[in-house]
C-alpha cells in the first residue's frame, strides 16, 4: 500500500515510495533527514513544523506526504541562499528572537509569509500573523521586534 511521490524540496527533487499515512513532517525529517522543522504537538496548534508548500506556509504535521506530490516545498534548511541568511533569519538573530530555538524554524517561515502578504505590518498584525506559532521562551516581544526589523530591511 505505498505510493510513488516526487517532491521538489529546497530546489532539489526527490522520488520516494511512501505509505499514504506518512506525514509530510516525517517524510522531511525521517526519510530525507531534513530535521530543521520540528514537531511540538499533534493538534495543529504549535506551528513548529511550519514549511512552505507551493509558496504557502502550512503545518507539515497536518499534511500527508502524498498530498505534497508534485509540489515545491521550502524548509528552513533552504531559506538561506548559499550561506547568506534570509533577512528574517538575520533579524531573529540580531533581535534575540529566539531562546531554545525549537519553535524558531516554524516561526521564521510564518514570519516570512506574513511579510510577503503585508510588507509593513503593525505590532498587532505581526502578533495576529504568528498566532499559529507557539513560543514558550521569548514572550514574543523580541520576535515582534525581529519581524519589524526584517520588514524595515526588506522594504529598503
Amino acid at each position, binding site marked *: 500500500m505505498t505510493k510513488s511521490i516526487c517532491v521538489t524540496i529546497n530546489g532539489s527533487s526527490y522520488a520516494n515510495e511512501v505509505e499514504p499515512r506518512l506525514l509530510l513532517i516525517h517524510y522531511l525529517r525521517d526519510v530525507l533527514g531534513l530535521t530543521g522543522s520540528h*514537531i511540538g504537538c499533534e493538534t495543529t496548534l504549535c506551528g513548529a513544523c511550519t514549511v512552505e508548500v507551493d509558496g504557502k506556509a502550512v503545518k507539515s504535521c497536518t499534511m500527508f506526504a502524498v498530498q505534497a506530490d508534485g509540489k515545491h516545498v521550502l524548509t528552513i534548511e533552504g531559506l538561506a541562499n548559499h550561506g547568506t541568511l534570509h533577512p528574517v533569519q538575520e533579524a531573529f538573530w540580531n533581535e534575540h528572537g529566539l531562546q531554545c*530555538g*525549537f519553535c524558531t524554524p516554524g516561526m521564521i517561515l510564518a514570519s516570512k509569509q506574513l511579510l510577503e502578504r503585508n510588507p509593513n505590518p503593525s505590532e498587532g498584525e505581526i502578533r495576529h500573523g504568528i498566532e499559529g506559532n507557539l513560543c514558550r521562551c521569548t514572550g514574543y516581544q523580541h520576535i515582534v521586534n525581529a519581524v519589524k526589523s526584517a520588514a524595515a530591511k526588506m522594504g529598503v
Partner: protein
Amino acid sequence: MAPTIITKTEKLVGQRIRRKEDPRLITGTATYVDDIQMQGMHHACIVRSPYAAAKIAGIDTKAASALPGVVAVFTGADTKDVGPVPCGASLPGLRVPYHHILAVDRTYFAGHPVAVVVATDRYIARDGAELVEVDYDPLPAVADPEKALEAGAPAVHPEWADNIAFNFHQEGGDTAKAFAEAEVVVKQRITSQRLIPTAMETRGVVADYNTGDEALTVYSSTQIPHLLRTLLAQMLGLPEHHLRVVAPEVGGGFGSKLNVYAEEALMGFVAMRIGKPVKWIESRRENYLCTIHGRGHVDYYEMAARKDGTILGLRLKLIQDLGAYHQLLTPAIPTLSVLMMPGLYRFKNIQADIVGVFTNCVPTDAYRGAGRPEATHGIERMVDILAAELKMDPVEIRMKNFIQPEEFPFATATGLIYDSGNYDAPLKKALELADYPGLRRRQAEARKQGKLMGVGVSTYGEICAFGPSPATPAGGWECATVKIDPSGKVTVGTGASPHGQGEETTFAQIAADELGVGMDDVVVVHGDTAVVPYGIGTFGSRGTAVGGPALYYALQKLKEKIKKFGAMLLESEDVTFVEGRCVCNRSGKSVSLAEVAGASYRAMKLPPGEDPGMQATYFWEPPNFTFPFGAHIVVTEVDADTGKIAVSRYIAVDDCGKIINPLLVDGQVHGGVAQGLGQALFEQAVYDENGQLLTGELMDYAIPKATMMPWVESHHTETPSPVNPLGVKGVGEAGTIGCTPAVVNSVVDALSVLGVRHIDMPMTPEKIWTLLQGGQA
C-alpha cells in the same frame, strides 16, 4: 535597541551581544534528540493507562509481538528490577512510594506507563502499541488535594491508610506573640493552580548500547546530564563510567526536564536488551499526562500587623498536591516556598505548616520558580489585602516594611541571609516610569465613568543561585573548564548545561574579557558527560550566578599559568597578562596567547613546577544564595460585560545584580513574564474527579499566544551581589515570580469598588464575570 556586533577585543561583559548559538538554530542545523539518526535504530511506543487508578488484571502482548516489524514488547514484569525512579529530596518521615519504571500490578495516574513496544520504525511501534491488550479493573481515584485529605478518601497508595506523604513544620521568631500583639489580622485562602510547563520540545530519549564495551550512551532532552548519569547508572545497575549522557540541543525545560524519568531508564533497559539503538519521542499528549506539572498549592494565610501597617508576623498552612509519586524534587518544592515567605519585609515571626498530599495525578515538581512564585504570590497578595484592610496605599505599606539597604546582610525568620538589596530603588523607578500618581488620577476618572481600571503593584524577592551544597539535594557548586588550544583558541566547558538561556554567549563574553580575546575565539561546550567533568545545572537561576563564577575562577587559575609560561618565554619575572598578551613590564616585549599556549603544548621547556598543556578546571562552591528582587506594575482594564481582562501596561524593573548581556536579560524577563501572565490569566491543568486530565492537549491548555501578550517595558537597577566575584544574581525566574501578584493585585484593585478582596488564578473571563454578577469566583 539593536544589538552591538562586536568584532574587536573590548570589554564585552555588559554589552547587548547577539548570541553565538543562534546560527545553527535559525538555519535548522541544530540537533535535538529527535534529530538523531543511527544505523539500525529502533523506535519505542509506550502503552499508557487510561485510568487514574486501576488494578492490572492482565496484559496480553501476543498480537503486538506478532506484528511484523515489532522486535520486542516489555511490561512491568520485565522491568521490575530496574529503578526505582529516584526521589532526591529527603524530609523527616517522608513516605516514598516505590516508583517502578513500568506499572507492575496497579496504575496510579492517567498516563501511567504500562508496557513498551519496540519496532523497526515509529509507525509500526505505534501500530503495535494498539495491539497490546491490557485488562484493567478501575479503582476509585482522588484528584483534588483537599479531598484527598478528607476521611474516607480513596488511598492513592494502598500501603498507607491516608494520603499524607509528609508534614513539615517550620517556625522562626515568636509567631504566637506577634499575633497576640497584633492590632489587625487578615486571613485569606490563596491557591496556586497546577500548571503544565509545556516546553515546546517534548521529552525524548535515544539510547545506544555497545555490547562489546558494555557501554550505554543515553541522549536525552534533559536539563541535568550529569545528575541523570549518576542516577541512571544506579537505576540500571550499570557502572557509572560505562554510561555517558548527552543533552543535545534542548528545546526548553523550565524545570520539566530537571528530572529523572521512567522513560530514560526504560530506553536504557530496552537498548541493553535488544542490543540496538532505540528512540522514544514523547507526544504532546504524553507530555501533558506524564511530564511533571508545577505549582498545585492550596494555602491558608494569616497576617498579623499593627494599624500603622507594620507587619508583625505570618502564619501559613500549605497544602501541596504532590501527585501520585515523588519525582526528583517533588517534596522539596513547597519547602522552598516557606523559605521565601518573608519576601522583602523586615518582620521576623513566621510559622508554616506544610502537608504534602498524594493524589492520582502526575507528580508536581520544579516549574520555573519552583515554590518561590507561590510564596511571592501569597505574601504580595497578603500585603495588598492588609493594605486594603487598613486603607493604605499598596506602595506605602511596602516601603514601610522593606528591609533597608544598611540592614544587609539580613538574617530572615526562615534562616536565610539576604546578600544585598536596595528594595526602594526598583519600586521607585517603576513608579516613576508608570507615572503612578497619574495612573491613580486616571483610575479615579475611569471609576466616575463606571469603568473598571486597576493598578497592581508587586515587589518580589527571589532566592537564586542554588546554592551552598548543604542547602541543596544534589550539591550546590558548579564546574567549569577552560582549555586553550596550541593555536590559542579557547574552549569553555560548563556543567551548568543551558537549554535556551544563552550561556554559550554570556560565558564567552566572560572568558573573552578575562583572556583578552574576541567572541569568535571562544567556544562554549556543555551537555555531555564525556566532555565536561561534572555539573549540576542551570535550575534555580544558577546558570550565570554559580556557573559564571566557576568559570571566572577557572579563568583566574589558567591566567596564572599563562603568566608563568609568558614569564618563561619573555625571560622576565615582571610580566602582565593584558589584552591577550603577556607583556614584560620592563622591556615592553610581549608574546601572544597563541605563542604561550603553543609553547605549553610543545613543552620544550617548562616553568618550574608547571605541567604541559593549557587547561584549568574549577569547582566553585558558593558561600550563599543570591537574592534578586524587583518591582512590577501592571495596569489592567476589565470589560464589565464579558469579564475579559486587558493588560494595558506592564512595567518590570528587575534587579538581578550585575548584567552580563542586557539583550539576553530582557529576553529572560519577557519569557518569565509570559509564563507568569499565563498562570495569572489562562493556564490551569484541570483534572476531573476521577483523575482524568481534561486539559490533555494544547486544544484545552492555553499557553499565551503572541496575541495574548502585552508589551513588557523591561528596566533594571543593578545591586551587585557580594556572594560572587561577578556580582551577578540570576534572572531566569524573576519575570515569572514578579508577575502573578502584580497582575492579580491589579485586577483585584479594579474590582475593589465591588468589594472584591481576592481572586484565585487563572482569572478567566467567566470567573471575573461571575464576580461582577455578585457571585463567588
